């Protein structure tokens, strides 16, 4: 139905490069790089990454040229980074949690097989030979080997055979010390050979049951292959003993339980998760660690909130002189990297030589064992984290205070409310609606605040008699760091991934509950307004 006033649908053109050569150039460069990366990755064997990148490029071209998905253009870059920086790492973590990825299992199976297959060993009575190379340094090379017994051998085309009368004969000027020619072929001085050494080192020449290969600039050595791989049966056989090794739990394993190193990454199902819940040694200190984690995350937020609130209200007072100066100074702890502050605090709190105990000694007459007693170590942590965290709280509270309408205060004063009443009934409820979600975020952050724990106390003082090393100030994340990376088997990345998933679930559940409460607070405060 035509309507006289209805304007035509706004046209949504594809991107026009007319008159925008720079934009065209940028687009071309990005696409070229992407295309190049695709091919490079494909040639390197990373087919899946290449395919995904290629599909991504296609999608990008489509989004930016088709009028039909015009609105998508605005969020496309964001989406791409979201996938790269959020979705992919999460996906990879989840995947890793179901593998044994970690020390001893870093290689893929084919890489492990290849390494074992190419392993050579010197047999007990291995022979060595001096050699002279003949031919063209850039082309085909023939080697003349001389054994300890003076026998001459000819190495070419992957085989070694004794020099016979039918072969081209070596020419020597010094009675067999050095050779100048082999038939028509001139000798190659060792220095000329060195540029090709890396290609020559992989050449082997069959010699009975063994192989001969170049082992230094002037020597050939007898070597034997250690293992033979049968791809059909997926079995590695030790050629010296005849023992067979089959893949099991990430290692090639013999019937009597011997394993070959290196192992490879393999899927282990829910093993990493069941281990976390079933292993007595891990469960031992778990309860105490978990309770302390909750206490730590909750109390630290409360303490920071109280300090931030007090300072925020103070800094918001228009009658305060030098307000901006104080504000700048109070923000300073936030500007110093937390790593440095944390380390400085460990020095300040040092029991015997720290400046804080130095002052306290004059006042109370004895040292506080900051890092030696579980109680004081926890106090020290709250102190340090207060220093690190109050500026953030102060900032968000200062911001939130601006959004509370002035009329409310005016009305309250007109009604004769005391300052305490104003804060309790107006400021706090309205503040909570704004900063409530931020408090939940702060809780989640401190729940996993590895840096502060690790740098200030390292989880110490230790729990005496625990089955697994743990400390009184270890929170879940630092405790699991000990398990996954200091547990004695190198880096157990798969196990660490499983733990981080579990911690995520815990934090998510707690946060959900908290959000519920903030929403309740919100509803209550909306009634006020």
């Amino acid at each position, binding site marked *: 139905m035509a309507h006289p006033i209805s304007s035509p649908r706004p046209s949504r053109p*594809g991107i026009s490069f007319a008159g925008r050569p720079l934009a065209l150039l940028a687009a071309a460069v990005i*696409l*070229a790089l992407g*295309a*190049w990366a*695709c*091919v*490079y990755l494909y*040639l*390197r064997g990373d087919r899946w990454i290449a395919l995904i990148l290629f599909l991504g*490029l296609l999608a990008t*071209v*489509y989004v930016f*040229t*088709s009028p039909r998905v015009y609105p998508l253009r605005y969020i496309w870059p964001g989406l791409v980074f979201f996938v790269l920086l959020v979705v992919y790492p999460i996906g990879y973590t989840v995947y890793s949690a179901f593998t044994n990825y970690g*020390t*001893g299992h*870093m*290689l*893929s199976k084919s*890489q*492990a097989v290849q*390494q074992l297959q190419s392993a050579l060993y010197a047999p007990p009575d291995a022979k060595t030979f001096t050699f002279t190379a003949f031919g063209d340094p850039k082309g085909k090379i023939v080697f003349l080997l001389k054994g300890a017994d003076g026998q001459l051998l000819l190495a070419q085309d992957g085989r070694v055979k004794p020099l016979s009368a039918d072969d081209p004969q070596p020419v020597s000027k010094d009675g067999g010390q050095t050779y100048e020619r082999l038939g028509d072929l001139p000798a190659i001085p060792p220095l000329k050979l*060195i*540029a*090709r*050494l*890396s*290609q*020559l*080192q992989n050449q082997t020449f069959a010699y009975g049951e063994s192989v001969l290969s170049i*082992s*230094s*600039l002037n020597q050939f050595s007898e070597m034997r292959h250690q293992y033979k791989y049968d791809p059909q049966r997926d079995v590695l056989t030790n050629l010296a003993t005849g023992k067979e090794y089959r893949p099991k739990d990430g290692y090639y394993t013999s019937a009597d339980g011997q394993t070959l*190193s*290196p192992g490879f990454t393999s899927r282990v199902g829910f*093993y990493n998760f069941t281990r976390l819940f079933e292993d007595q*040694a891990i469960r031992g200190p778990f309860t105490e660690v978990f309770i302390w984690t909750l206490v730590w995350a909750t109390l630290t937020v409360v303490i920071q909130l109280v300090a931030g609130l007090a300072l925020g209200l103070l800094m918001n007072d228009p009658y305060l002189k030098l307000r901006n100066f104080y504000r700048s100074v109070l923000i300073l702890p936030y500007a110093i990297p937390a790593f440095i502050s944390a380390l400085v605090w460990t*020095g300040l709190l*040092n*029991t*015997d*030589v720290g400046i804080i105990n130095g002052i306290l000694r004059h006042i109370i007459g004895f040292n506080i*064992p900051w890092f*030696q007693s579980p109680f004081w170590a926890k106090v020290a942590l709250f102190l340090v984290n207060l220093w690190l965290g109050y500026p953030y709280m102060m900032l968000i509270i200062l911001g939130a205070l601006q959004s509370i309408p002035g009329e409310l205060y005016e009305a309250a004063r007109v009604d004769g409310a005391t300052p305490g009443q104003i804060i309790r009934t107006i400021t706090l409820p309205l503040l909570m609606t704004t900063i409530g979600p931020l408090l939940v975020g702060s809780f989640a952050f401190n729940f996993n605040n590895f840096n502060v724990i690790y740098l200030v106390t390292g989880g*110490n003082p*230790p729990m*005496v*008699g*625990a*089955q*697994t*090393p743990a*400390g009184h100030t270890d929170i879940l994340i630092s405790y699991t760091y*000990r398990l996954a990376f*200091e*547990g*004695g*088997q*190198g880096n157990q990345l798969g196990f660490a991934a499983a733990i981080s998933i579990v911690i995520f679930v815990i934090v998510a559940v707690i946060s959900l509950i908290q959000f519920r409460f903030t929403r309740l607070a919100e509803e209550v405060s909306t009634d006020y307004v």
Partner: protein
Amino acid sequence: MKKALALLVALTLLASLAVGSAGALASTPGKLLIWCSEAQVPALKPMAAEFQKKYGVPVMVTEMGFGDIRPNLITKGPSGEGPDLIVGPHDWLGELVANGAVAPIDLTANEESLFTGTAIKAFTYNGKLYGMPYAVEAIGLIYNKKLVPHPPKTLDELMAVAKKLTDPAKKEYGFLYPLGDAYHAYPFLSADGHYFFRLTSKGFDAKDIGIAQMVPGARIIATLTQSGLVPKGSDYNTMASLFQSGKVGMIMTGPWQIDSIKKAGIDYGVAKLPTIDGRPATPFVGVQGFMMSAFSKNKLLAMQFLRDFVMTKEGQLAIHKVDPRIPALKSAFEAVSSDPDLKAFGESAADGIPMPAIPEMAAVWNAVQNALTAITNGQTDPVTAMKTADAQVRKAIAQGAKK
């Protein structure tokens, strides 16, 4: 739609171009790549240039954070982006070998004998040599000549000297060392011949764990703290800063402290660690060396580089100049042994044992450090502390063997 088509055509064209260039980025044989940390770069760069001049083979020296070299080799080696040689300490070997990241190197018995025995032993793992050593280091006794004119020869002497110098009120101490650190505590813990893992001819035996027996050493540590000689908060930084301010008679640490002490203007001396109950103290010895990547395509070239520059006196001295540790090549060590500091650290190292490189050590650090802290805090007695640590290590290792 036309534009989309045009773009796609351009894309395909570019892709075909890329096929040609892709080969150039993959690591190519005939070119050496060495990863090392900051300390060795100034020495290796001229060597690289000389190697290139001599053989026409380009050598690249890439500087990397010390802590990044090992994980990077493990992850980048298999994907073909790794180097041919890395420079690092021998105790990386456990993890590197378990991950198939390094390859053994072949030296003749004659060549091996050019190096100090400890250095070769340290780089021997599962009976194979995995690196060419260039420097050895161990902790010794560093003393302030003003406060301690004659360094003590025995632990009893040390305690007597320390007692006279200690006055906590003035923050003056006779003897300090990092209390909670198992590496620095090892000379004490190993008193009476005890060990974390027993050293056999084939290397350290992860099944023979002797932590529970380390009670005599643990008692020494308990005495040092309970008698008030070493304050409970003594960690590495406290020790270093107090010594540099001239308030400490003796500290127990390694050559890496010397530079700062010199800069602080302290008149210092270095002595061999004191004997404990008549036996020489056995510190952990760390050995630095060159290791070959298992994924190197230039193993023979890399060997040539090592033979030319690391197995020679000149090469070792050149590295020593920028990274002043005890040279691992006998002839180079003799050339620098007139330096009294090096000589003393060298004597300490001579009695020491290589730091175990087996991956199981990771469990030991954690457990023993907890035990040390519990002892020095007075939370528990030496016997219980060491027993607990022993059980924790056994548990962790058994857990690892299960998978």
